[in-house]
């Protein structure tokens, strides 16, 4: 067994001759993880913001379809004749885009929630009890 232990050490030692240190890799992994979480947060934030904006804009367009907008004096239907992009907010593609944004926002938020999950107090207490038992066993042996 001693030979195998020795062999293991020598194999592992010789394999690390490429100059890339453990610390370098470790930092890269942690940085990538952090960047991934940031990216997800940003996507979730943007999706929610755009969804809310589109929702309110669509509600506004719909509400003032047959009413005059107080500060403009025109209804959105009339504005839509000159600016088709305003009318676009009430078309099926716009609704599909808003739904897609909502789905993306929910998925990213849920993923973020899952990623940030930690142990519950109950689980931590269980772990501590196991560790305590093992420590007692160790001190008994000593």
């Amino acid at each position, binding site marked *: 067994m001693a*030979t*195998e232990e020795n*062999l*293991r050490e*020598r*194999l*592992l030692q*010789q*394999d*690390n001759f*490429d100059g*890339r240190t*453990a*610390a370098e*890799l*470790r*930092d*890269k*992994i*942690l940085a*990538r*993880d952090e960047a*991934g979480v940031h990216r997800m947060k940003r996507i979730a934030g943007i999706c929610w913001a755009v969804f809310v904006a589109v929702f309110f804009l669509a509600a506004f367009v719909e509400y003032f379809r047959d009413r005059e907008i107080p500060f403009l004096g025109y209804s959105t239907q009339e504005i839509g004749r000159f600016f088709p992009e305003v009318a676009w907010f009430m078309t099926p593609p716009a609704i599909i885009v808003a739904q897609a944004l909502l789905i993306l926002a929910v998925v990213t938020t849920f993923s973020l929630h899952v*990623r*940030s*999950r*930690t*142990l519950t107090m109950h689980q*931590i207490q269980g*772990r501590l009890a*196991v*560790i305590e038992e*093992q*420590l007692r*066993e*160790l001190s008994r042996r000593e």
Partner: protein
Amino acid sequence: MKPDAKLVEQVLITRCQLRDRQAMAELIERYERPVRYFIRRLLNDTDLADELFQDTWLTVIARIHTLGNPERFTVWLYRIARNHVYQEFRRRRQVVELDESMEAPDNTEEEMLSFEDIARVHQCLGELKPWQKEVLMLRFIESMSYDQIAEVLDCNVGTVRSRIHHAKQALREKLEE
């Protein structure tokens, strides 16, 4: 693993599950050499192996809260590393043949391997088939029990026993060539 080292690791894993980044860094460092070696030898491609090593740890960090028993961490970690490697094999459409028909040898006692030239072992290990490399590394680099290896490979203990025997034979033949 010594009992006190095992305890330290359990605490470390629990801290990781509480999203302690310092503990994550420590855990990565702890397993850096054997896991990197495992992936490298399976792939025979250093740069890609380092990429997969990083991906393995990103998966570990993302899913560590799902690990119920910290004592199973090593097995869980190697399962993730192996899955990443086999995904890469599938991506490359590399056929991973597993000869399940092999009989388990009667004499199952551990045979001692005596090697003089480590560089030669690296080379010969690299020439073996993936299923031969993985069992040898899990057994001799990570010192896993047959049960643990069976869990990593998702097969039964008899198969592990048989694979180790045949892998050792193959390695010995390569060394004698």
